[in-house]
């Protein structure tokens, strides 16, 4: 792409600045420009935030609508309320008969879904561009005309579906129950969650809907083959007349969270493989730190100083890494699948002994290589309308603004061995981690996972 033309058209410009050490041959360095039109942002008078980004590469449009409500907003004793509400909104509305929303989506979208995470509820659909108005119509029905169609019969039917999906969350809940204090919003529902679901009545779902499924608590992202003016007129048509309900917005309560120093959480349950997880809690989202964590994860995932130690000791074949972002906190998790009959405290000791060696592998060359890979991940977000829409949603959820690849690349380029060393000291110290031992117990003796939190002995 011609650089001057790209600037002239006001396009996104992602140029990989040659922030390179001299020993790298110039020819081997990536040097190119990517162009996609900039996203346009505005807010309707009713508070709905709108992000529109034309992407004419393929005749399709990705539409995502995100509500700031998730399972962490479930009142205590009413576990799965937000999830149940998500299901109910696929029911009839004033203008859609029962099952019609599924029929429209099945017929016109090859990728659609609704998901409830701990912090957000997201509905998305990918449609051919000539059906651009359809998901807007469906989503406006969901936002404005669904509540009046909630009935006892549908509530009971959706309760059964939500109960059937509980197993999908069981693993996450098992750990979260031990990690978060009971009163914290990230503490999952009790073991009697089915009773909690049974206790949900129509007033509960109606109240949660009125206080969260509303334009001033949502944003819409559209990326795809459209003219901005046209897309904007469609959004205005379907969403601008939506009136906010009378009750006030539900306040969100997410206290900052850090682990107590040097604790071990042990969870006994039937399982094939015993696992040790080293989990660090992270402070609220910050772009620069997020880039540093991505680069560090890339270095560790590429070639790390721990796997050899763990293999030689016969403890594990290696580990997997996971970075999870939540509102006002995050988690950096390293998981080891233990070999048979290995004492997890041995894995803990090896991790503690080996962790300082991570700092030793942060050479300038290695950091530069990892930065290139992380930049490649950023560029992959530009591959399709759908991946772009997802990236916008992720940034809007956690940083309050749409995805900017050039900004993302700038933050990645600022990462240095020194900044990674600071990250290790400040946020990923061995003492600060929570050690989670997922232990096996016989099915015959199993009633529910048995959990204990103890101080780790060095």
């Amino acid at each position, binding site marked *: 792409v011609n650089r001057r033309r790209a600037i002239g058209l006001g396009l996104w410009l992602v140029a990989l600045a040659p922030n390179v050490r001299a020993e790298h041959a110039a020819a081997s360095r*990536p*040097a190119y420009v990517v162009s996609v039109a900039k996203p346009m942002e505005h807010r309707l008078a009713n508070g709905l935030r709108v992000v529109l980004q034309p992407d004419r590469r393929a005749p399709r449009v990705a539409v995502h609508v995100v509500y700031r409500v998730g399972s962490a907003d479930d009142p205590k004793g009413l576990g799965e309320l937000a999830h149940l509400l998500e299901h109910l909104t696929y029911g009839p509305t*004033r*203008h859609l008969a029962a099952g019609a929303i599924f029929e429209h989506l099945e017929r016109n979208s090859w990728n659609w879904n609704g998901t409830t995470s701990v912090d957000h509820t997201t509905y998305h659909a990918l449609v051919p561009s000539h059906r651009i108005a359809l998901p*807007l119509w469906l989503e406006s029905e969901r936002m404005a005309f669904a509540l009046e169609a909630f009935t006892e019969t549908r509530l009971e039917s959706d309760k059964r579906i939500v109960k059937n999906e509980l197993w999908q969350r069981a693993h996450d809940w098992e750990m979260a129950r031990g990690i978060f204090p009971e*009163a914290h919003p990230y503490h999952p529902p009790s073991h009697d969650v089915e009773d909690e679901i049974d206790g949900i009545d129509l007033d509960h779902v109606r109240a949660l809907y009125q206080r969260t499924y509303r334009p001033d608590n949502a944003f819409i992202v559209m990326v795809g083959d459209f003219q901005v003016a046209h897309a904007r007129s469609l959004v205005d048509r379907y969403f601008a007349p939506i009136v906010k309900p009378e009750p006030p917005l539900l306040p969100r309560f997410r206290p900052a969270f850090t682990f107590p120093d040097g604790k071990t959480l042990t969870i006994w349950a039937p399982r094939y493989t015993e696992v040790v997880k080293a989990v660090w809690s992270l402070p609220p989202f910050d772009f620069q730190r997020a880039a540093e964590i991505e680069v560090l994860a890339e270095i560790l995932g590429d070639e790390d100083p721990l796997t050899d130690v763990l293999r030689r000791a016969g403890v594990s074949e290696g580990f997997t890494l996971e970075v999870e972002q939540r509102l006002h906190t995050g988690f950096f998790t390293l998981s080891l699948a233990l070999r048979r009959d290995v004492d997890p405290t041995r894995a803990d000791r090896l991790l503690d002994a080996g962790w300082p060696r991570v700092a030793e592998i942060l050479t300038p060359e290695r950091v530069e290589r990892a930065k290139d*890979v992380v930049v*490649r991940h950023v*560029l992959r977000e*530009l591959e399709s309308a759908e991946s772009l829409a997802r990236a916008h949603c992720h940034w809007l959820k956690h940083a309050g603004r749409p995805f900017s690849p050039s900004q993302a690349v700038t933050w990645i380029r600022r990462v240095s061995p020194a900044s990674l060393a600071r990250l290790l000291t400040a946020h990923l110290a061995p003492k600060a981690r929570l050690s989670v031992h997922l232990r096996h117990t016989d099915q015959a003796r199993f009633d529910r996972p048995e959990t204990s939190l103890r101080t780790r002995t060095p």
Partner: protein
Amino acid sequence: VTRGWLTTSLATLAVSLASCGRPGSELGRPRGPLTPTPDAPFRSAPPDPIGAERWIEAPVLRHAVLDNGLELLVVEQPWTALGAASYASRNAGYADTTPGLAVVTAAMLLRGTEFDDGRVLTGPRIGAFAVEAWIAENAAGIQIETFGSQARAAIELLAQIVRRPAFDPGELQARLASQSTESFASSTFVEGHLEALALEQLYGDGPRLTSPAWGTKRSRAALTRELVVEYHRTSYVPAASALIVVGP
């Protein structure tokens, strides 16, 4: 950190005390009209399609056959910054050979060439490269994804991987061990485990589509470097393969 923990606990306790009583009482009761938004005629029916459906304009596929029979497929995608080069062989799938042999051969291609040790290749990344081996019933291959500007280097690396693999005996033993672990991991789902057991019982170790691609314990034990070298020599031949390059 301990003080943070205490503060968090106190804050959450305060909120839980404030909301004690009937579960959900903090939500309040629904108020006002359930649907405050005024209705409009256009809402009563699905919107009409805008114009006719447009088909995706597939990028131009350029095709050539090299003297050695290798098919060359090139797709230019000027809008993307990333490129991929893939070497695919239609003879290297796992359906028609000793169980486990095709998988171990494909994996061994990433464990070193005559020029680079396996650590560099299996890393699995070299700079911005992502190098992967893939395998299906009737084909297998190696794919490299990188920045478009590095396409030439990627293709050179791909050629080295496919033409000059080291098949180091130590690496082969390590790979067979990890294949055994992967086989076990794939059997930790009850259905997968039962399926593998049933197939082994029904078909034994024969080279059939239904045998486990990872191989069975017995078939893996019989795999040797010679078998791998010979399988690679006959399966990854240019005349049965294609080089596919996609990118800016």
